[in-house]
């Protein structure tokens, strides 16, 4: 006995407008094409992560079965399904970075922040995430914070990067 949800009760007007912008790019009966964009928009507005309820809302908004949204959200690593820190530090540990000493970088980050991959610092400022090749092998080892790449890392450089963040 699940009645259709009123779409205007989902999200605030600004988010709806952003999602609608993406829906408009696809044919009318292919609204689910906007799923990835919608998840990103909703995640950004929610401090960087997606709760089950938010994914359900995206499903209702796009007329998709909820499981189809979970599939997308669990497939791509840029979606977070648990709360993350204000700064999400994504460290590449794939081949090129590994050959160029990413282990040292990881060790340093873990030591400085006192957390392991997948964890959040107690003050909620940082979380650490292991990622696969981000296509910046030329600058290996590298990491990403927000939408910025930091390359040719050394422990000192890592310190100055972190110090420079709010």
């Amino acid at each position: 006995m699940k009645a259709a949800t009123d779409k205007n009760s989902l999200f605030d007007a600004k988010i709806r407008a952003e999602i609608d912008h993406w829906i408009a790019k696809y044919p009318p009966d292919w609204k689910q094409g906007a799923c990835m964009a919608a998840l990103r928009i909703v995640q950004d507005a929610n401090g960087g992560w997606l709760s089950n309820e938010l994914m359900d809302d995206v499903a209702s908004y796009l007329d998709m079965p909820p499981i189809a949204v979970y599939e997308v959200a669990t497939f791509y690593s840029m979606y977070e399904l648990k709360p993350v820190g204000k700064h999400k530090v994504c460290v590449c540990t794939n081949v090129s970075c590994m050959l160029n000493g990413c282990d040292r970088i990881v060790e340093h980050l873990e030591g400085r922040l006192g957390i392991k991959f997948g964890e959040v610092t107690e003050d909620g400022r940082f979380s650490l995430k292991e990622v696969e090749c981000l296509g910046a092998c030329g600058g290996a080892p590298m990491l990403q914070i927000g939408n910025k790449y930091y390359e040719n890392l050394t422990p000192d450089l890592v310190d100055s990067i972190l110090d420079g963040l709010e």
Partner: protein
Amino acid sequence: MSDKKVTIEVDGRKLEATAGQMLIEVTDAAGIEVPRFCYHKKLSIAANCRMCLVEVEKAPKPLPACATPVMDGMVVKTRSPLAIQAQQGTMEFLLINHPLDCPICDQGGECELQDVAIGYGDDASRYVEVKRVVKDEDIGPLIETEMTRCIHCTRCVRFGAEIAGIRELGATGRGEHMRIGTYVGTTVTSEMSGNVIDLCPVGALTAKPSRYQARAWELTQTNAIAPHDSVGSNVHLHLRRGQVMRAVPADNEAINETWISDRDRFAYQGLSAGDRATQPLVKENGGWRPIEWSDALALAVEKLRDARAEANALAAPHATLEELFLLRKLMAGLDAPSLDYRLRQADFRATSAVPGYGLSIADIERLDAALLVGSNLRKDLPIINHRLRKAALNGGDVMVLNPVDYEFNYPLGGALITSPSNMVASLAGIARAVGVSADGAIGELIDGAAENDETNRLAARLTAADKAWVAVGALAEAHPDYAVLQAIASAIAEASGAVFGFLPMASNSVGAALVGCVPSDGGLDAVQQLSQPGKTSILLDIEPAQDCLNPAQAMRTLDETAFVIAISSFASDSLKACADLILPMAAFAETSGTFINGEGVWQRFDGCVRPLGEARPGWKILRVLGTMLELDGFDYESPAQVHDEVRAMIGDRGIDNSLDDPGDVEPWRPKGMQRIGDVPIYRIDALTRRATALQQTGEPVSALACINAALAKRLRIADRGQVKVGQGGKSVVMAVRVSERVPNDTVWCPAAVDGSELLGPQIGDITLEKA
């Protein structure tokens, strides 16, 4: 797909095929074995397991047979060194993460993975690393999960999307972390969900009710016809030591294809319910005492002799053709005209002689339009709904006129949702829009009806359709103006060029009509029999508290009836309350017989397990009663003789949906609120009501009043609170749900559930007040 014929060669054999067919379809048809996991003939092609790799000449590498279209002159080798190497490689990879826990796996012995591993795999694994483990979810009472065994063929996922029409299972995560599940651990709700158990090629999804009960090689397989709806799905019963351990579908393209509903799969559980009738029982001073069969029969005969022509009889429409025939013959022998099987019919002013679908089950999927009048089809007849769903997905318009906005698993082409009393006017509106010209009272009703956008739209679609069907369902049958609804629906069908039909509920509704289990001259119909206490009544396989239109009245009347003989597989407390003698009858699987399904197809089946205790097949009980009553023609020696006689009597008569004029059409006018008392999917018959797993699925099992927010506000009733529901002077306190699926001033209050036995007619006046 074009019909162009091509010739290909497989393993040296020349095969004819149609261009565009997939290689695996051609090899399957030719009986050439190609191993597979993800391919299934009824599902879309995923080509993700790679088990079906074969060598195709001129192709640079092995190709998946399930996703390779045939081309003229193609030369295929399924057992060449290249093919074998590819198959072995795939098998080795598939087993890397498989737990190989066959000794504790229910699928062991009937597992596609085991079979293919033996046939195409190597005998030892080179993999020594760690295996992945997947945590299980609880997806409900019907399906057990052991997802570490899953090989990600996605058959279950495609089944949900393509057949069940609700996608509940999915593949979350990626690579090593991919897993099949609901992600959030919800219960799978499809009424056809159990089919994923058969589809799953490994032991990841198995039947929960029969889990750990038997090993595949201990079971013997027999054929049966599912007794829970008018489809008559073909099933295999799996038996061990004289007990039904489970039911699975048997292929029949013309009926159930390869599927069965969950009801047909799991209702067998009711066979081992604690209240099975296992010995004859007689009521004495308000208590019950077991007696010998001979004494029980003598008592029944004495009471029937007393009553003679005044005897009444009611039969369940899921009784076998042979039982129904013998009951009719017995009543005829007594010159007793009061006999009926239409236990949920409210209005007998006019009705078709032999109501049935009116078209073949296979034709339903080829319809361009259908109008359902009073039917929760998805829950009532899941297989018919599945066929109609195919029509809808093919562009057909499935439209409904219903008193509740039932959920369908496909988009409806139109829906008129209105209170029961308004259904007549709405249907008349459609008739007017279609341009029906009728005389008499029905004509007047139609001429006076209001058209609106929705009635016009429905009418337009119906008229425009090439192949259309107007079908009257179970909720119309329980409607006080059933005769009027039928007459208008049939007129709509005629005017719009549609086929007119019914959606009979029970496995042998059609059979009961064909043998004439209806009152003859001056006899009482079901409603009359159950409103005036008589001398002696026979109840054949009926639980009056659940199986009748107006249970409160039925119970009262039977209680006041001088002597009630219940021939029944169950001796429930409610039956004991109204019966005087219980003759234990063999249940489903314990007796042979025949069902005639809604299409008119005769299907015979054998008994395959011994009746429980002293229970006897219904036909034998009726035969002995006939002989002891010294009636002519009861000296049968086998059920086959009975069958032959029914065959001869029915001849080539079949479904007959033509109608008489109902005459008087003064419509029912409710005094206030109206009840919609549909029968929930797992309350349909005694066996299903006792299937414990089905009772836990979340479908309604106990009394419930569902009203819309406007009514709740007016009565100051809160969602999930309690409410006092009254009908016919009695009242019951039950839970409330607020739902916008229910129209104004109506109360959706299911029948045949616990607590509803104190209520009145399924559709009728009802009162509601704060508890």
